[in-house]
């Protein structure tokens, strides 16, 4: 049963990874990265149960807590053009094409 969950999660990661490669805009890639982070949390938990060592949930917790940081950093970067100042006056960087 845990093997089924692990298999489903690995397949889902592979599918989302394809979107990460294709993703025309950078947002698609960030969405793919964020989703893979969430799937990795599930995969870590399921793998821990598969091997009867569920104490490895600590790593999954690290991911669940820290995964939001990169997305928020990218939001900051695109909206204000800098990482520190919420009211940055400089224009944001040019939009990257694929």
């Amino acid at each position, binding site marked *: 049963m845990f093997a089924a969950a692990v298999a489903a999660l690995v397949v889902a990661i592979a599918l989302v990874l394809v979107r990460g490669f294709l993703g025309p805009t950078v947002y698609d890639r960030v969405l793919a990265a964020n989703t893979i982070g969430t799937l990795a949390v599930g995969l870590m938990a399921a793998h821990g149960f598969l091997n009867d060592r569920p*104490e*490895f949930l*600590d*790593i999954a*917790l*690290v991911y669940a*807590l*820290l995964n*939001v*940081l990169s997305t*928020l*950093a990218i*939001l*900051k970067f695109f909206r204000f053009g*800098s*990482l*520190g*100042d*919420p*009211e940055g006056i*400089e224009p944001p960087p040019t939009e990257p094409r694929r």
Partner: protein
Amino acid sequence: MMHREAIPRVVVKLLIPFLLLYALYVQFHGELGPGGGFQAGVIVATAVILYGLIFGLAEAKRIVPPRLIEVLVPLGVVIYAGVGFAGLLAGGNYLDYFVLDPDPVHGQERGIFWVEVGVLVTVSSTMTAIYYAFSGRGR
């Protein structure tokens, strides 16, 4: 400005105490499970960076002043090296923990504890310092 990013602000405010608490857990539970000073230091730095991202660099610098960071970066190494000198003073070799306590096993635990604290202090403050240095620069 308050309303433009209400949702990230509220959630980050909720999240940061848990991050710091979890860093403490990783630090002190590192003897039993995965984790230790380095990982805990990174998580602490992440909390500071998250705060700086959402509430602004100036606000983060008000709470964690760069002066303090500049003191903490070498302080961690000093703590680590100080454990070594404590071993020397207690009559053993450098970084010898067995002599730190009458009971050798307690001495080991004590030595590992302070060494991990040193790693935590240096790693967290270095990561924060790098973040400050990078994001404080104009282009």
